């Protein structure tokens, strides 16, 4: 067949995105993460002081990874809405340490950015080449940084 039922793609994408951000707790198990290891479940138990600690050889903080993920989400969300603004990716790594208030705000912004992405996905009428590619990028990029965050968490 030269076509794919759009719902087959969007349902799979939504399930994997939900697992990555919200974790999955169904009787059917997970597709690639251990239960309760999604981004938001991971961040829930981290405070500003832990998120600001630069540990290990990489020297990057959890706060830095979170801001970078948020920046990427916002950029890709605009891209999927055909708002093709250029980004200076160095700006995505400007945050290193956070106060309690900044950490609460950053976690809130991450939730908001995720909500915006899921809203955008729901609004897509036709999943074409660049929209599929944008969605896959969001998934893979978040998975990559979630893993780094969980590695750092072992040390803070």
């Amino acid at each position, binding site marked *: 067949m030269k076509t*794919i039922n*759009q719902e087959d*793609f969007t349902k*799979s994408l939504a399930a994997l995105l939900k697992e990555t951000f919200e974790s999955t707790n169904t009787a059917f198990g997970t597709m690639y993460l251990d239960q309760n290891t999604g981004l938001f479940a991971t961040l829930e138990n981290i405070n500003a002081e832990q998120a600001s600690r630069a540990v290990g050889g990489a020297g990057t903080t959890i706060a830095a990874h979170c801001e970078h993920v948020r920046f990427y989400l916002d950029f890709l969300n605009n891209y999927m809405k055909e708002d093709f603004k250029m980004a200076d990716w160095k700006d995505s790594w400007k945050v290193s340490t956070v106060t309690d208030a900044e950490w609460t705000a950053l976690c809130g912004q991450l939730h908001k950015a995720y909500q915006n992405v899921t809203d955008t996905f729901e609004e897509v009428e036709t999943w074409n080449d660049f929209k599929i590619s944008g969605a896959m990028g969001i998934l*893979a990029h978040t998975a990559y940084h979630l893993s780094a965050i969980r*590695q750092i968490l072992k040390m803070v």
Partner: protein
Amino acid sequence: MNDNNYISKEDFLKDVLVILRETFEGSPEGQGSAYLDHGIGVLPTIDKLSAEQVSREINGITIAAHTEHAKFYLDRITEFMKGRTEKVNWEQSWLIETVNDEEWNALRDAVRKSYDNVLRSFAEIETWNQDNIGDAVAIVAHTAYHLGAIRHIAKGL
């Protein structure tokens, strides 16, 4: 149903293959990347590491363990895409902790072979449905996740 109920198989396959290639091989020189810096991918990353480095335990885990786990997942999901129904004992994916030079070379070759098998399997699929789309996208997400861990651990070696 109108056209909006369908997506082009060619678009889907092209995008999955582009991001899979970036995840394993890194993005091609001179071209944009979807989510990784240039030169970063599973294969160039593990090629630069020695058996001794990947056997060093950092925070309770080694790069060799992550590599074997990622390879095991690739093999099993490829089997599921070809019709496997038997359950998998995922604990077996974590049996390797340390490797000698010979074992590390063999593991790196096995990862390449598993990646090639995935590409071949994708090409053979006639009908993409919710199950095999989910498997294909999960392969990308799972590999990206463990690549993130491997590269983070490598920075601390």
